[in-house]
């Protein structure tokens, strides 16, 4: 099967007074149609920047410096704004981390949905209205609230209105940035079911950016773990959760609180991520790594293939699963 999306050695930097913030620094991964990639990693590691760059919405002073973004085989990294606009919303859409990004404060939410639908599909207003109601229902917003403005909704409701807008046109790829971060577990579960339905009904691909690793495990087919602007492990989800290879993956999975244990202590990885303006020369995780050796400080580890579709960026693995 052909890939829906292939990212090759993508670099996206923000140019600030004191230098370039290397928010995405040599990222590669891929996904097939209908697949879900869970994009996880520490706060500030570049997840939103990566998501935004696929839609070419990185705001200034950010810039795509180099690399390829192949969507259905076409490299869209070089596309102009006019061509991108045809892609956005209808083929690739995004639920933004800030729910207000996609909402219009001056528009009643039903109106907004109807307008979104009608700019891309030539259908009568009444039909679009019916569709809008259905969409609201699917994300758990009572359709009778359709006449309200965004500020009249709760944080989680706004998030869900953003989801309704993003799926209104049946995109091939949905980039969902922390789109369940204010939802209770039951509504989260319902939204994940909705995503599974869209996956099954028209093979929608999903990039699920989240800090909630437990939630990601419920839906992801692949996991891309980011650390300081780079993907340090890319693996099929079941393998990632049962046999994580990268020391950061291991640390992260150990930090997930287990609700069933009464034990109060929370685990975490000591230390802080590096400054992305001046990242360390060697492995970026070295300062926090429990297994670090001299080479890790001096040289940047390559992303090596361990098995078909399983990559890890660490000197402990030398093209095989066993540690060297």
């Amino acid at each position, binding site marked *: 099967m052909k890939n829906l999306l292939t990212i090759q050695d993508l670099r996206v930097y923000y140019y600030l007074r004191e230098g370039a913030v290397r928010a995405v620094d040599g990222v590669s991964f891929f996904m097939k149609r209908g697949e879900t990639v869970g994009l996880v990693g520490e706060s500030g590691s570049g997840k939103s920047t990566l998501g935004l760059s696929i839609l070419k919405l990185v705001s200034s002073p950010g810039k795509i410096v180099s690399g390829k973004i192949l969507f259905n085989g076409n490299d869209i990294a070089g596309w102009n704004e006019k061509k991108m606009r045809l892609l956005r919303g209808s083929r690739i859409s995004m639920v933004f*981390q800030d729910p207000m990004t996609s909402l219009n404060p001056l528009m009643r939410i039903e109106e907004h949905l109807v307008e979104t639908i009608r700019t891309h599909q030539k259908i009568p207003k009444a039909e679009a209205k019916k569709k809008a109601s259905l969409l609201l229902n699917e994300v758990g917003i009572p359709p009778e609230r359709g006449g309200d403005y965004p500020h009249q909704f709760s944080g989680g409701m706004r998030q869900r209105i953003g989801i309704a807008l993003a799926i209104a046109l049946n995109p091939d790829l949905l980039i969902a940035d922390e789109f369940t971060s204010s939802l209770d577990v039951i509504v989260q579960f319902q939204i994940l079911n909705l995503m599974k339905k869209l996956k099954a009904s028209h093979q929608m691909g999903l990039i699920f950016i989240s800090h909630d690793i437990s939630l990601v495990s419920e839906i992801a087919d692949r996991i891309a773990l980011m650390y300081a602007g780079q993907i340090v492990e890319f693996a099929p989800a079941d393998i990632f959760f049962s046999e994580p290879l990268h020391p950061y993956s291991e640390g992260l999975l150990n930090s997930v609180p287990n609700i069933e244990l009464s034990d109060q202590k929370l685990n975490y990885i000591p230390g802080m991520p590096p400054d992305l303006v001046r990242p360390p020369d060697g492995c970026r995780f070295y300062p926090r790594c429990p297994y670090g050796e001299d080479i890790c400080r001096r040289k940047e580890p390559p992303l090596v293939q361990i098995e078909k579709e399983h990559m890890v960026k660490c000197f402990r693995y030398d093209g095989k699963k066993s540690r060297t």
Partner: protein
Amino acid sequence: MERKVELKVVNLKKYFPVQKSFLERLLSGKIEYVQAVNRISFEVRRGEVFGLVGESGCGKTTTGRLITRLIEPTEGKIIFKGEDVTFIQGERLREFRKYVQIIFQNPYASLNPRMRIGEATAHPLEIHGIATGERKKKMVFEMLEKVGLEPAKKFYDLYPFELSGGQRQRVAIARAMILNPELVVADEPISMIDVSLRAKILELMLMLKEERNLTYVFITHDLAVAKYISDWIGIMYLGEIVEIGRKEQIFSTPYHPYTKALLSAIPVPDPKREKKDIKLKGEVPSSINPPSGCRFHPRCSFAKDKCSNLKPSLKMVDKDHYVACHLY
């Protein structure tokens, strides 16, 4: 020793009028309301954490905004350290704001886009005349470091749009904590922070609590977080508190069918584990026309006739543990 009551909320109610066009109003002939918070009561003792958990849209943020006097209640009272603060104004309200802080749910909307992070964090110190000059700067650096915004010197000069979501959330925490408040309403303060950092932030919040005998109303959708940080937990559903108790009681012996459904829906990081099926029938009811009787009854698998007619009140089921349900 019984701790002193820091905050008491009595029959608090907030209805928002639904905006309609002139024509719609003419046709329907009545004003409709969103019943965001419907007569809730609870108290929080000094130095304790009250976790507020519930469905998205059930009224948690509205409750937090009422407590911090950002909006006026339709009915009910807010009592802070024995004083009725529901309608205080002027100098007394200013004083109140020094002691009571809120960490807003959306870190994108709550930071002034034209203020650098350092200024934004220092701002409360200035308004209340607490520190200036070098001392102020030192306090800000310390606070930024405590929430993991390192190097603090770099973050001091950045603007909010130069930060990621989780970084902004930490600025909001720093800004609320720098004033040495007595009561903090924290509305999903760590919802965008990954697990490894979140433990550090939660420990910081607990440490400040111990050091300064702080009181928190902690709103969160994450039950693992609620379990970790809270002493008491209140479960809300459609504007009402349906269960309240000590944390251990809520997690070990939940009574309300909604609480049980919530606890059964907690995700676990293991894709091979059998996927659960969450049994909550029906659609989310609207808070404009909430169901009669128990507001949860249309979605409850144990509902009896009585549940659709009579609203259950909070009853004590065990010491310190209350539930609003006709089953008990």
